[in-house]
């Protein structure tokens, strides 16, 4: 059960374990650590019990050894018992804290890992509809709220309740009347503290909200420093910041005002209770109803009944926030993962890359049809070019191949087999994608190139791939060479450089089918030719799909599909399409028109 200390164990399926029910869910989330947690709370009970025992011993000591001068045991034994009780109290507090920490940290680690894994396994449709910031906040703030629930709140509520119960029973045993008198104020304190912490939680949220606004103002000012200076808007910026800064001050003031009201009020309440108890207790002692030792024990114990209750309200309010966090986290957990391994393993040997689309249609869940009746055939190693405007369905079409989405009608065949028989994992291993503006990770360039391959790769292999992708020389100009970090903390790469690194990444991956997005060429002409030659290396012996905007890059394709509104409107080789009356011909004619115009321009210049 405790084997998890060192390394993560990610075998537990939280989706099956958890449910909508919050408290049950929070309990099950601790799976395997529940007994530990119960032990943690029980240790709080023992700790409270030792504390009570200390005061009872004091009572015994005063009554016998001092008041009556009877000494049944040697004095050192009494001293030892005192030290022992206090020591036990400390020991149990520590044990409880340690067990609770072990439970909460283990539970939360498992939850963190599960969420991370869950998110990367959720289908595309989920990601395209979910806001990144929202997901991150659930994985961080909400998970942390749950951590505090296990580590502070649940254990805190346990501690305070046990302190109250154990001490209250002890008081009742000392003297029932006195015991009952000592809890008169309890409901008031509880009520006031819950009321107060609710208000605090609202005010605090407002304060945090303003803090976020202030941060944004600052961040925008700093990153837009050139604009601020260019318009000489420093005074305006200062006024704007000051306004937000002042608002934060005001909200902080409000928060503090609530605090400054609560603590004295609750202090007076507790004070009234304390003094009433002292008065009644003292009179009872004078009347001989209880002993002096009893009074001393009472005076000590009563403090542990009243004062901790002031904190109980805070835990209760915070706990309700943790329950909301549970809901938000559970919403991610309950989503269905993409079954990436589902498929016929027997088929998964070497494939050639022959692809056939038969009357394929595709629509998203909410019924907007994106692809209609797509049919074509590509032999292994051929180049298929897709030409069409934004929204014509090019990307949707290629997204079907690695099964990012599954087509909804018709048939797609890979090497003559139904595409859906292959597992997603296999397909994605065999298909390489080079996007127009590829996403690189903030790691070293080396790691980015070897990112797609699950084996150890030598430096030579990486460099060879980079050379083939025509990016090796560029990498060498960076301060750290291949170890240079990409992104904010390292070099900023241009679109063309990113694309060539993605090409190197795909070369190492060595897929049998290739998807290349060439939609917009914002890169300059020189870079473009470098990318083109890198692509030609990559395309060799692989079935390739090129998404293109311009004809120049696809004239050599084996098959050109001209798309419009989710349909193939023209299909064929360049030589045939040029002769055909249609969009393709129109685009092609532009080429000749441009050259004529250029000649005209130049002759105008003289």
């Amino acid at each position, binding site marked *: 059960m405790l084997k998890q200390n060192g390394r*993560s164990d990610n075998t537990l399926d939280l989706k099956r374990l958890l449910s909508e029910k919050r408290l049950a869910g929070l309990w099950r989330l601790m799976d395997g650590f529940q007994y530990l947690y119960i032990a943690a709370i029980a240790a709080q009970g023992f700790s409270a019990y030792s504390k009570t025992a200390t005061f009872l011993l004091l009572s015994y000591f005063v009554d016998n050894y001092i008041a009556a001068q009877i000494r049944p045991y040697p004095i050192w034994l009494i001293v030892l018992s005192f030290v022992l009780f206090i020591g036990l109290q400390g020991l149990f507090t520590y044990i409880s804290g340690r067990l609770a*920490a072990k439970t909460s*940290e283990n539970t939360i680690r498992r939850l963190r890992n599960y969420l991370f894994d869950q998110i990367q396994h959720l289908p595309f449709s989920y990601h395209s509809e979910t806001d990144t910031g929202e997901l991150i906040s659930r994985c961080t703030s909400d998970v942390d709220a749950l951590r505090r629930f296990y580590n502070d709140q649940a254990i805190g509520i346990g501690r305070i309740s046990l302190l109250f119960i154990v001490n209250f029973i002890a008081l009742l045993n000392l003297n029932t009347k006195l015991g009952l008198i000592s809890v008169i104020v309890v409901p008031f304190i509880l009520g006031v503290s819950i009321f107060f912490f609710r208000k605090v939680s609202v005010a605090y949220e407002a304060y945090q909200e303003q803090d976020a606004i202030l941060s944004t103002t600052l961040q925008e000012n700093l990153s837009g420093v050139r*604009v601020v200076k260019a318009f000489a808007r420093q005074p305006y910026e200062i006024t704007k910041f000051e306004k937000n800064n002042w608002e934060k001050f005001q909200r902080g003031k409000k928060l503090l005002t609530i605090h400054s009201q609560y603590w*004295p009020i609750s202090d007076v309440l507790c004070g009234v209770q304390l003094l009433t108890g002292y008065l009644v207790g003292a009179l009872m002692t004078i009347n001989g109803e209880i002993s002096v030792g009893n009074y001393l024990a009472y005076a000590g114990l009563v403090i542990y009944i009243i004062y901790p209750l002031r904190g109980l309200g805070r835990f209760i309010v915070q706990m309700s926030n943790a329950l909301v966090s549970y809901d938000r986290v559970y919403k991610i957990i309950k989503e269905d993962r993409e079954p990436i391994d589902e498929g016929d393993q027997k088929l998964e040997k070497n494939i050639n890359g022959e692809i056939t689309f038969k009357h394929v249609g595709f629509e998203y869940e909410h019924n907007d049809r994106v692809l209609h009746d797509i049919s074509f055939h590509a032999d292994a190693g051929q180049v298929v070019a897709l030409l069409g405007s934004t929204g014509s369905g090019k990307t949707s079409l290629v997204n079907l191949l*690695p099964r990012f989405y599954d087509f909804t009608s018709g048939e797609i065949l890979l090497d003559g087999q139904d595409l859906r028989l292959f597992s997603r994992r296999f397909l994605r291993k065999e298909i390489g994608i080079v996007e127009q503006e590829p996403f690189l990770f903030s790691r070293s360039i080396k790691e980015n190139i070897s990112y797609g391959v699950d084996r150890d790769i030598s430096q030579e292999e990486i460099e060879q791939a980079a050379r083939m992708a025509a990016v090796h020389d560029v990498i060498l100009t960076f301060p750290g060479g291949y170890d240079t970090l990409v992104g904010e903390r390292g070099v900023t790469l241009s679109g063309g450089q990113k694309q060539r690194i993605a090409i190197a990444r795909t070369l190492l991956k060595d897929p049998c089918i290739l998807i290349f997005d060439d939609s917009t060429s914002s890169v300059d002409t020189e870079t473009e030719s470098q990318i083109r030659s890198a692509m030609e290396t990559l395309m060799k012996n692989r079935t390739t799909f090129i998404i293109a905007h311009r004809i120049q890059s696809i004239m050599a394709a084996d098959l050109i599909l001209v798309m419009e509104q989710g349909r193939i409107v023209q299909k064929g080789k360049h030589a045939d399409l040029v002769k055909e009356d249609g969009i393709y011909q129109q685009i092609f004619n532009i080429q000749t028109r441009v050259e004529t115009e250029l000649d005209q321009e130049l002759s105008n210049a003289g």
Partner: protein
Amino acid sequence: MPADQFKEEEFSGKLTGEVFSRILSLLRPYWLRVIGFLVTVIIVSVLDAYFTYLGMQIVDQGILTGNREMLYRILIRYGSLILVQSASIFGFVYLVGILGERIRYDLRQKLFNHLQKLSLSYYSQTPVGWIISRVTNDTERVAELMTWGLLDATWGAVNIITGLIFMFSINWKLALIVFAILPILLYTAVQFQKRILTQFRTVRKVNSKITASHNENISGVRVVKALGREDKNLEEFSELSDEMYTAGFRAAWLSALFLPGVQIISAFAIGGIIWYSGVQINFQGITIGGISAFLSYMTFMMWPIQDLARVFAELQRAIASAERIFALEDTTPDVLDKPSAYDPGTMRGDISFEHLFFWYEDELPVIKDLNLNIKRGETIALVGSTGGGKTTIVNLLCRFYEPKRGRILIGGHDYTDLSLEAIQSRIGIVLQTPHLFSGTIKENITYGRLKASQEEIEKAAKLTRAHQFIERLEKGYDEEVGEGGVLLSVGQKQLISLSRAVLSDPEIFIMDEATSSVDTLTEALIQDGMEAVMKGRTSFIIAHRLSTIKRADRILVIEDGQIAEMGSHNELLRLKGKYFNLYTKQFRSEREGAYNIFQEPDISNDKQVD
């Protein structure tokens, strides 16, 4: 370099006289409130110790003597003092809390105001994250130390001292036991707190790594899936969460050990007290109430000790924060008005660059002996490859940086003699990466001229063709642009930033690839409007689109920090040199783009999956 490590090692956190007096000076304007909270917290602290003493009196003078009169009197005193204490608690929470917020406010504002004065060279050397951390975290830490830290330390120290005084008055021998054990307690407590703090810092660091990891995995989920990286990613993430587990668990159990640890040390003192009193009672050395008072003092001693230790452990870090704040305050801007700086009233006039040299921090020359005379009202186009120095010329002209050698004259004045305000308020600049501020479109356009009327705003927006897409938005000009303008496309942002510059009605107009992401059709439409704007103003255009520069009065090909070719469009074409090559190459790709029937206008702001 990661922002959190930048310049970290330069600040020692040692308390020197200078830092100390500067920290204190933050409190000076509020000295009355400081005295107020110190007095009230001392009252609270003394009463806390006195209540234990009163508890003793209840036993010794009330219960043991059976004197009810005395009992009532003590309880009445106790009760009224509770009221006094509650009032004082109200006083100090209110005073110190609001003072803390006020000091945070002051520090943030002071830093922000100072940041506005710093030059671009500061910003290019300092990561934004580092600056933000100064304005947020460091101000927080210093304010916390100066208010709640000071308060906690005062309460703790006074409580221990008054407690000791009462103990000595009850029984000096017993008090000596406590007195002897106190340094051990304090030392242990401080060591403990320091370790706990270190662990919490590790937790925070790992936590930000975890957030970054989530962020990357979610934004790059397409690549992760395409490359089938899921298992390896989980493995890597598990390492992070293992790290988090180790640090978090350690922090938690150390914290859990703290109070019991202190308690167990004090248990020995309590043992000593019991043993001593068991013997002493025969000699009337101590009363029953006295014993119980001693036990209470010992039991509650751990709270002031905890407070003191916590403040002490935080001290070093807070001082390092203060040092960083002061260092930022002491940074002087590189570009500064001379004391004799003046405003000539206008920036209209000829501009000349005389033997200009410039290099950035790395000291590699960027501009080498550049000479140029520009007539008032001329339109100058700068072309050339990236890194050739075009943007640096613009930076120098705007006086974001000053030339290292040579000088720039505007209307005959050496521009370093003029005030920055005089120059920059009359220059309109549009950058390639448009920067928008959170707020509405209208607010972003009026940034160019704060008092512009709605008609003027619309006029500027019509000129730049921004009006067309703005009108199609649901709330028109009142549409929110989102943080940094995320709700708009780059092309839309460029049009807004262009409108902003047009509205500012500048005397010198600079466009640094201002419309690079606007579709060709829209750009052509803007053309006429922009020409009207540039008429009569000296203008500089950096562009890779030829249509925009063709009609410039002079075109400069900048290469290697020098002017490689200069002349009108036709002159340069005839030269058949660099410009000719550039032009023919770009002409082809640009026209192909312009005629391409698939080219979607970028300003339509479509965010489709495809």
